[in-house]
C-alpha cells in the first residue's frame, strides 16, 4: 500500500473524474434549500445525488434546487430512487442525461418498499443496458461480493453496497462483506445507505471503502450543518486510519510505558 504523504493529495477517481472529497451527500429531506446548500458546503462534498421528478406545471415558478446548489461547482449525480424495475430506472436516467448532459449516474433498482433492498436481477439488467447506451453507472447494491463482481463485469463504474437499509441510520451492519467487496473490486467501492452518525462513516472508511454516500444521517440530524461537518471529519479520519494500518488487537493489556527503570 502506498500511503500518501502530506505533499501527495489523497484523491480518488471514478469514470475518469478525480475528486478530493470522499463524501457524497444526498439532497433530500432538508427543511429548506438554504439549509441543504449550507450542509453541502459544510460537508465538503464534491458530488451530490439528485432525483429526477416531474416539474410542477401548476406552479412553474417554484424555487429550484439548481438555484441553491450550482451544478457547475458540484457534480450532480442523478439517481433512480423510487424505481422498482430496470425499465423505469433506464427511462429515468435517459431523461436525467438530457436534463443535465451527464453520463455519470447512480443506479438503484429497489425490490420492495419496506426494506428498500435492491433487486439485484433488475439492477444487473439495467446496468448492462445503461452501459450499452453510454452511461457510467455507479450502482447501489447488496453487500454480496459475487454480485459486486458481476456488476463490475457488466460495466458499473463504482460499486455501492448498503451498510444498512436506506434511511435507517443503523450503521455498518456487514463489515465482513463490505471488506470482501473492497478487496475484490477494481472499481471504487462506496458504502451507500445505512450511516447514522459520524463513527459509522469512519467505520466504512476504515474498511477500505473509497467513499461514503449518505443523506438522511445529515438531513435528519437536529443540526444538519454541524452533522455535515462531523461527517466530513469522520470520513477523513477513517480514511487516514485505513491508510495508517491499524495496530493488531491483543487479548490482554500491553503497557505503554517502559517497565525498565521502574522505581
Amino acid at each position, binding site marked *: 500500500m502506498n500511503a500518501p504523504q502530506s505533499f501527495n493529495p489523497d484523491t480518488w477517481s471514478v469514470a475518469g473524474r478525480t475528486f478530493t472529497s470522499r463524501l457524497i451527500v444526498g439532497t433530500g429531506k432538508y427543511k429548506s434549500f438554504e439549509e441543504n446548500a449550507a450542509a453541502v458546503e459544510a460537508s465538503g462534498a464534491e458530488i451530490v445525488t439528485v*432525483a429526477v421528478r416531474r*416539474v410542477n406545471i401548476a406552479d412553474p415558478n417554484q424555487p429550484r434546487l439548481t438555484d441553491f446548489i450550482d451544478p457547475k461547482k458540484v457534480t450532480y449525480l442523478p439517481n433512480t430512487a423510487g424505481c422498482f424495475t430496470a425499465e423505469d430506472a433506464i427511462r429515468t436516467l435517459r*431523461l436525467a442525461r438530457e436534463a443535465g448532459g451527464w453520463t455519470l449516474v447512480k443506479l438503484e433498482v429497489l425490490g420492495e418498499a419496506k426494506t428498500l433492498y435492491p433487486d439485484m436481477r433488475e439492477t444487473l439488467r439495467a446496468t448492462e443496458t445503461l452501459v450499452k447506451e453510454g452511461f457510467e453507472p455507479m450502482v447501489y447494491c447488496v453487500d454480496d461480493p459475487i454480485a459486486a463482481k458481476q456488476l463490475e463485469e457488466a460495466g458499473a463504474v463504482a460499486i455501492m453496497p448498503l451498510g444498512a437499509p436506506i434511511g435507517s441510520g443503523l450503521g455498518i451492519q456487514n463489515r465482513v462483506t463490505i471488506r470482501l467487496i473492497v478487496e475484490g473490486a477494481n472499481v471504487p467501492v462506496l458504502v451507500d445507505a445505512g450511516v447514522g452518525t459520524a463513527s459509522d462513516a469512519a467505520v466504512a472508511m476504515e474498511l477500505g471503502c473509497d467513499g461514503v454516500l449518505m443523506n438522511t444521517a445529515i438531513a435528519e440530524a437536529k443540526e444538519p450543518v454541524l452533522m455535515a461537518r462531523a461527517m466530513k471529519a469522520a470520513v477523513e479520519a477513517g480514511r487516514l486510519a485505513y491508510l495508517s494500518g491499524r495496530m493488531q488487537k491483543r487479548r490482554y493489556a500491553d503497557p505503554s510505558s517502559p517497565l525498565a527503570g521502574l522505581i
Partner: protein
Amino acid sequence: MSLDASVSVRVNGEHRRVPDGTSVAEMVSLLGLDPLRVAVERNLAVIPRSTLGQVRVEDGDAYEIVHFVGGG
C-alpha cells in the same frame, strides 16, 4: 384536432390544449418553463434538447417534463 385549431395532449399526467402547429419548445415555454432547464419525454421517447424547437406537438401526445429535485 378540434374546431378551434388546438390539439389535446397530456403533460405530466394532466390534460392540456395547445394551439395546432406548436413546437415542443413553444409548449414548454407556454407552460411557464425554461426549455433549457428541463428534459422532455414524448410518448416514452426522450426528445433531445437541440430538437425541441423542431418537433411539432401532435394531438394525443403524452409528455413527461422533468427536472432535478432533492434526493438521496
